[in-house]
């Protein structure tokens, strides 16, 4: 019986979310909310259904930006808002199932400790939740910066057991790359909406965005990216210092312990000669084990660095393409 139960749980375990399907209106709502709220970063809730390995998001609503006056008050206000909104939406037959949340990110940076904490909070109640990250700067440059991510299962278990140390990571063979898993996004529309969108098909005339895309200057974007990159590298150096301090203190503790042990042994031989009882060779109160620092920050910053590097690479290669095109046009004597 126990084996069957475990088998069942294991199968449910395997049903991880593999793809995310958005409805058109969710896409547009997220875009509208995040772009209008610039430069502030905002969040919102996703509602939908999970169907096997695919998570269908059918609706979403925005969260009011929390005023950081009183934490307790803000939290209860936020929870109230959520309850009220869900109740109203239920009356009009909207899917009442929370499947995750979305947030806007600045320059594509979303790897923070708060994100992980929110994920873990969600995970307590909903096994399959996803976070959609929207990058408004990327979209302003012409391509939709939308990503769906979730945490890797093994990472969630590891953090539940509080074993976010290097040894813990090595045991489950996770590297910093494996914390987040990116999911492919599909967009689906009901037939009625497809008819609407087909009708709405905008006239194929060029827009201001097209003109902006031909802009050859990529320097400001690269500058900002590199600045953030430099900050990240500073953070990593700090983290490394923490780790080195830990190792040094462990080494020093070992030394002290060895010296103390020797002294104890000498005392013991002395006492044996005097026919007294030997003192114990261990004293737990003197040498408490030093806790190993968590590797979480280290890994998150590394993830951040990887994101920035990717962005820089893409932007730089775009710029080079455009520059070479420009050169070709100039050479042709236009």
């Amino acid at each position, binding site marked *: 019986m126990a084996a069957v139960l475990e088998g069942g749980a294991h199968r449910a375990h395997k049903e991880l979310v593999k793809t995310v399907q958005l409805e058109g209106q969710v896409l547009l709502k997220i875009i509208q909310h995040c772009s209008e709220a610039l430069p502030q970063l905002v969040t919102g809730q996703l509602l939908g259904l999970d169907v096997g390995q695919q998570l269908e998001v059918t609706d979403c609503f925005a969260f009011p930006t929390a005023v950081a006056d009183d934490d307790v008050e803000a939290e209860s206000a936020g929870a109230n808002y959520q309850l009220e909104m869900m109740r109203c939406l239920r009356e*009009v037959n909207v899917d009442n199932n929370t499947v995750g949340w979305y947030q806007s990110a600045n320059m594509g940076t979303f790897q923070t400790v708060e994100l992980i904490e929110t994920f873990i909070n969600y995970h307590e109640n909903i096994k399959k939740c996803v976070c959609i990250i929207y990058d408004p700067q990327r979209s302003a440059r012409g391509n939709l910066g939308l990503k769906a991510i979730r945490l890797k299962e093994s990472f969630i278990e590891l953090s539940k057991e509080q074993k976010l140390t290097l040894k813990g990571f090595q045991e489950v063979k996770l590297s910093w790359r494996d914390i987040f898993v990116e999911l492919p996004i599909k967009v689906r529309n009901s037939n009625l909406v497809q008819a609407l969108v087909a009708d709405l098909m905008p006239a194929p005339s060029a827009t201001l965005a*097209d003109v902006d895309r031909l802009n050859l200057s990529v320097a400001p974007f690269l500058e900002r990216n590199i600045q953030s990159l430099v900050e990240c590298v500073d953070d990593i150096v700090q983290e490394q210092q923490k780790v080195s301090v830990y190792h040094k203190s462990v080494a020093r503790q070992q030394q002290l312990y060895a010296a103390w042990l020797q002294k104890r042994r000498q005392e013991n031989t002395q006492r044996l000669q005097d026919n007294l009882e030997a003192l114990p060779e261990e004293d737990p109160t003197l040498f408490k084990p030093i806790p190993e620092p968590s590797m979480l920050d280290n890994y998150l910053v590394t993830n951040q660095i990887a994101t920035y590097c990717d962005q820089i690479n893409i932007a730089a290669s775009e710029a080079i393409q455009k*520059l070479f095109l420009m050169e070709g046009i100039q050479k042709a004597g236009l």
Partner: protein
Amino acid sequence: MAATVLLPSSSNVSVKVHPVVLLSICDAYVRRKEHQDRVIGTLLGVVVDNVIEVKNCYVVPHNESSEQVMVDVIHHKTMFDLHQKVAPHESIVGWFATGSDLYNSDALIQDFYSKESTHPVHMVVDTTLKDNKFSVQAYTSRMLALGDKVLATEFVEIPCDTIFGDIERVGVDLMLTGLNDPSPESKKETANKSFSDEAETLAASMGRLADLVARASEYVDSVVSGRVSGEPAIGRYLADTLALVPHLARSDFERLFNESVQDAMMVTFLSDLLRAHVALAERLGTAALPIV
């Protein structure tokens, strides 16, 4: 002299709708309760000069029969308060209904909404796809009064347009081309066009701009050959635009080009270096060892 019917002067109000609103309305229509024929709800937006921009909407449950109509006012108020918390600058600008015609009860609902906002706009979204066309119409109401007595409320149609922000256009384009899953029941893996096909979007942009330039040059040709009488304003505008094209001496251009390319390459090199460094540290396990 017969009493004249007083018609207040109609201000030339026009309505601009964001596509989000239309998609939400369609979605609400698909989700409506079984016995209902149509869905009504509130429109939120901003009013700038004589243009009403509709940015958001939400559905309000209602019940209508041939004699009376009931609207769930509490729901309407609650949702409005909730929306105010997120977007305080948006206000109620009117209401929408699906279906193809105006109903008798619309006048009553319009009355209710005129208490909420000064010039409520009534938007009719034709979800029945009459005439094989998806039509969106907007009306504003005015009172027909005979002297002092109010006769009726008349709905006057006003121009209604869909506007896209540039970013929304990207979203709508994506929905149209390739990311669509044609049948909701199919489980086959549709080709997942990635969101970041940079080169393709660049090519598409250039195509559109090239079209524009071709049209402009066609126009100029036809003016020159005398087929079309030219307008001096357009001619001046074109001349100004062409004057903006910079003429760079060859050496200048080479210098600029080389500098930019070198910058981009250096940055790529730096980022690759950093990545290699991190990867190496991870492999050697030195990410967790003290820096010697």
